[in-house]
């Protein structure tokens, strides 16, 4: 059997099978990306926070655009070479195409990894802070910051990982596990930390799964040391007893319902209804019928309340028993006490894993797997080694919706009020914005009314200090020998650029972010209760990054998929070429169509994410 029109086109449609298939597939891809871009539009116009405009460095995206365009040209050349039966030329162009795909993904990976290491936090007053989190250091090392501090070796946790100072620390006196849901990695981590601290975790009290006088079930003695195996044994025994109890409860409940139905008070007949309400003569027959239906429904609904499982009796091993007689003890929780050793036993918990909302002075917290820790909080501050972005736009939006003066709101925000260095920066920034305003007026003048400036600084200019700006002010602080000595007069802007004061970004900084070794930034410690939500620059940070990563990520997968197919033709296409060159040409055309589509998506994704 042979499928027709695999290579040669069918006469009336003029197409071969794979050409039709690829266009159908592309139509569905249009719908896929159409759905995603619809999502972008919907999220952007519905955003209840300031959408980050033009927030990505343009250069990596621009280079990637050039690379994709180049590859689009070369793939069509490769096809043309095949059509002219020039094998070597085909190989060269195809190799360039695949290489372009690899370079594209390289830049993409670099772009992603910079974001995955860049931290942001939304404070409770909606101020956004961006920067890099410090690693935990031995006591005393934090006093100094800058180059000296980075030389100190950070502390490592039990698994050898450096600890970012963005965790909730808790010193448990007791740990209560929910044995129905044990998350093994966490127990192992707890045990490792306990071993380092020299702490001992022991079962608080006996857990006996036997009925009184019986010995067939396991008994777990108080004082047994915590281990995964121990918890799993407890869990298994608990599930065992629970299943037994549930089985018997079901049986007794069935019996109880049987008893209830046999009970004369459960009579649902019309006669019973009439006996209960003898004076229904006045009602019309259909009204009476409705009343009866309602009465019966209500009575049925209430029967459940009278069904008493405990009162039912069943025959078991030849004697009548009640549920109390067969019930086995259950223990859904296993509580372990902590005896501290030479070092304090302090657990470092990701914010995401602690589901209790943070408050200072908590003595009990619940983790995601249902584990309850009792004890006392440790220092849970969030420590930024470098702050490279402070954004008041969201705070301003909230303030204006409440009818407050945004400048007053900023002045009262925690970050300005409690951090004189930031307050000074904000002061310089306002001076910079004023310069920008004047520069715009100087070049563009006023509207016809003579009062309204034609062009004014954007919200982003006014209320956001990006890394170039912060580096600029920090440089001033450094030169003046301290922020106290800096003043608004030190601020200059570059005329004609229409930006707030800022340092010039180097080429490499466009790809890798600020050069922390040669620039100055500020150090900031934020108490945990000031932090509403924190995130790296990942899809979690806001819906802009979510849709950015999703679309570009899916696009990246398409690039990889397309490159694999094209590479297959490059490396394994020879035999196809020798048997029928037209066949390979058709396949390359189809692969090329897909590749052009990938380019087409990027043509829209690039301006939308990088320039708008």
């Amino acid at each position: 059997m042979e499928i027709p029109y695999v290579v040669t086109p069918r006469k009336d449609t003029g197409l071969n099978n794979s050409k039709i298939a690829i266009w159908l597939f592309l139509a569905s891809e249009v719908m896929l990306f159409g759905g995603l871009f619809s999502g972008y539009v919907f999220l952007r116009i519905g955003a209840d926070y300031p959408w980050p405009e033009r927030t990505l460095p343009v250069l990596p995206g621009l280079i990637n655009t050039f690379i994709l365009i180049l590859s689009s040209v070369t793939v069509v050349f490769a096809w043309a070479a095949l059509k002219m039966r020039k094998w070597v030329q085909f190989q060269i162009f195809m190799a360039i195409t695949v290489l372009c795909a690899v370079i594209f993904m390289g830049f993409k990976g670099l772009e992603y990894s910079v974001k995955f290491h860049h931290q942001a936090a939304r404070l409770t007053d909606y101020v956004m802070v961006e920067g890099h989190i410090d690693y935990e250091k031995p006591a005393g090392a934090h006093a100094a910051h800058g180059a000296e501090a980075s030389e100190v070796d950070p502390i490592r946790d039990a698994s050898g990982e450096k600890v970012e100072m963005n965790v909730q620390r808790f010193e448990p006196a007791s740990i209560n596990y929910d044995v129905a849901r044990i998350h093994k990695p966490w127990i192992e981590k707890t045990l490792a930390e306990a071993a380092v601290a020299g702490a001992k975790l022991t079962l608080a009290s006996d857990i006996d799964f036997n009925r009184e006088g019986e010995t067939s079930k396991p008994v777990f003695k108080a004082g047994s040391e915590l281990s995964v195996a121990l918890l799993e044994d407890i869990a298994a025994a608990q599930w065992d007893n629970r299943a037994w109890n549930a089985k018997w409860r079901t049986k007794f409940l069935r019996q109880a319902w049987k008893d209830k139905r046999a009970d004369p008070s459960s009579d649902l007949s019309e006669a019973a209804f009439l006996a209960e309400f003898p004076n229904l003569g006045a009602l019309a027959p259909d009204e009476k019928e409705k009343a009866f239906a309602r009465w019966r429904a209500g009575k049925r609904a209430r029967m459940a309340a009278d069904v008493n499982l405990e009162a039912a009796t069943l025959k078991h091993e030849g004697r009548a028993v009640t549920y109390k007689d067969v019930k086995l003890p259950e223990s859904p929780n296993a509580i372990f006490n902590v005896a501290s050793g030479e070092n304090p036993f302090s657990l470092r918990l990701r914010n995401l894993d602690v589901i209790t909302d943070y408050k200072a002075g908590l003595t009990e917290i619940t983790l995601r797997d249902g584990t309850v820790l009792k004890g006392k909080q440790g220092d849970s501050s969030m420590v930024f080694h470098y702050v490279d972005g402070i954004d008041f736009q969201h705070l301003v939006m909230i303030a204006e919706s409440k009818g407050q003066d945004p400048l007053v709101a900023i002045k009262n925000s925690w970050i300005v009020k409690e951090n004189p260095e930031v307050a000074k920066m904000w002061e310089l920034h306002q001076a910079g914005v004023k310069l920008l305003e004047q520069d715009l007026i100087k070049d563009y003048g006023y509207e016809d009314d003579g009062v309204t400036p034609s062009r004014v600084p954007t919200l982003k200019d006014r209320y956001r200090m990006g890394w170039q700006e912060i580096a600029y002010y920090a440089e001033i602080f450094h030169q003046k020998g301290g922020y106290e000595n800096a003043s608004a007069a030190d601020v200059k802007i570059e005329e004609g650029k229409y930006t707030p004061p800022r340092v010039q970004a180097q080429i490499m900084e466009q790809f890798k972010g600020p050069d922390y070794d040669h620039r100055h930034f500020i150090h900031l410690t934020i108490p945990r209760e000031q932090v509403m939500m924190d995130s790296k620059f990942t899809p979690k940070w806001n819906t802009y990054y979510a849709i950015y990563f999703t679309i570009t990520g899916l696009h990246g997968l398409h690039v990889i998929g397309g490159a694999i197919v094209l590479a297959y033709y490059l490396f394994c296409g020879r035999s196809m070429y020798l048997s029928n060159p037209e066949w390979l040409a058709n396949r390359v055309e189809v692969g090329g169509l897909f590749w052009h589509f990938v380019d087409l998506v990027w043509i829209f994704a690039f301006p939308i994410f990088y320039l708008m």
Partner: protein
Amino acid sequence: MSAHADHHADHHDHHEPGFIRKYIFSTDHKMIGLQYGITAGLFLLFGFYLMMVMRWSIAYPHEPLPEWMSWMFSDTWKSRWLQDGKVTGETYNMFGAMHGTIMVFLGVVPLGFGAFGNYVTPLQIGAPDMAFPKLNMMSYWIYLAGGLIMCASFFMESGAAKSGWTNYSPLAGVADAQYVNQWLAGQTQWLIGLVLLITSSLLGSVNFITTIINLRARGLTWMRMPFFVWAMLVTGFLLLLAFPPLEAAGIMQLMDRVAHSSFFMPSGLVTKAEGLLEISGGGSPLLFQHLFWFLGHPEVYVLLLPAIACVAEIIPANTRKPLWGYKGMVYGVLVLGFLSFIVWAHHMYMTGMGPAISTWFQTTTVLISVPSVILLTSLIISLWQGSIRFTPAMIWALAFLPMFGIGGLTGLPLAFNLVGLHLHDTYYVIGHFHYVVAPGILFGLFAGVYHWYPKITGRYMSRTLSHLHFWPSLICMNLIFFPMLTQGMAGFHRRWYNGGDAYLAKLPDSANVFGSTVAEHIDLNILMSWAAWFMALAQLPFLVNMVISKFIGKKVESDNPWNATTLEWATPTPPGHGNFTTEPVVYRGPYEYSRPDHDEDYLPQWVAPKRGATETEETPSPEEKPAAH
């Protein structure tokens, strides 16, 4: 049976594929069709079972499940998911969500499109196989993987998905959040399964459309294609274009779960377990609904069209007259396909959409009833003055007409958003779409099974058993679903577990009028539940029939046992690999029954006209004829 023997002889000339290549990793469209059919059938039974458990909770609130419905679970599973043997709200939600998902995505679509489409379409267009046989095999295996992943989650710690088959965020976004490893949560597995199912459907639809466009037999022009093929073509386009937005939504929701993004999570979300959620917020739950229903509505027609397609083949063959209004039906189904893409938000009237856009969606929704009515009316008129043979297939097809009619007509009021205020999320809605899907679509597909079974196996199905299957099913179906319409109008809410008894706690002396009207109809639940359980029994004769007829059914007398006209009956019985023994050529339209100028009451598409025939349209159409599509 000479054809049968010939075919076998012919088959042995080719190399015989091994057992695995022939029955498991087969690339033959017929075997893949059967694989789809059997798998989908098993999923349908499973989905049916879930519903039986739910119906227990509705009819007998607070009573433990009877032994006969729960013996198959381990005691541990029951102790986790049942409370003293009773169905808990969580379990009810889980079963409800999975009932819907399984029935729609794993049952009816694969049965209609996957099984019937795969088996019949290439035969009817005279193709040796699908255009991409390996892709076809891949579609099936991806579908199976997706289905198994979804169902396996029943036995995980988290249980299966429990946020409705529509999986609306933010409920679906926060469900199962207590599991640290989100990849092992039922809610996440549902999404992964869904993405796989969509991928499978996309591959399938690309394959179908390519096959229909490019692999038609010589002479089979567009307007000579059986209606079945047209319906499959439209279904293919619906799958191709409607599924990707849901794939986008699925991926976004997956991101919400595993990357903690906020696509569908609004700002300031607080849950009882977690307090203020550790997410950014700023997303839109409505976006999910839009993307979901952009698929959701065309999906209705993906379910429906294969059933209508089967019925449209069976009715002409058994009335011995042409399909009435073939051209009208073809254009009708094209318009139906087009309109189905722009009606989706009628599922969302209660979300606070603006009036202008609501009006748009009401208008298109009312419009789409026009082509639906054209299809149904044409089928009904086709019966007029026919000499009807009441074969098993025909009685199912006949029952399909009124049942689908009820389903369609009960949908009309729901097209208006004012009526939606009252009926939204009530059992009226449940009754409406179940009338479309269960007695409607499933009856049509049953008809298809009875109709093509002789071609697949070479034997007829038992007539007695088919009647034993049909009559109880017809009665039970109506006993299940008709009371739902009444209950819904009385205000019975679709998501009440325990039959809404908590709602009745204050009755009968309460002033709650809404609750009172519910109470007046609540005892219907018992009737409906028993009807549902009997319905399960009524499927036994069918299952028995399918199995035993393969071995002891009456053998077919010829390759064309129903004296039908379309190309699948020109193949040997059962058709071998490659389908046709000679290259089929088509000379005429698909429904040439009872032609006055012909002795027999049917004139198949493939029979060459007699020498000297004057009808010009009977010559094989030249291939140069431009494609109409």
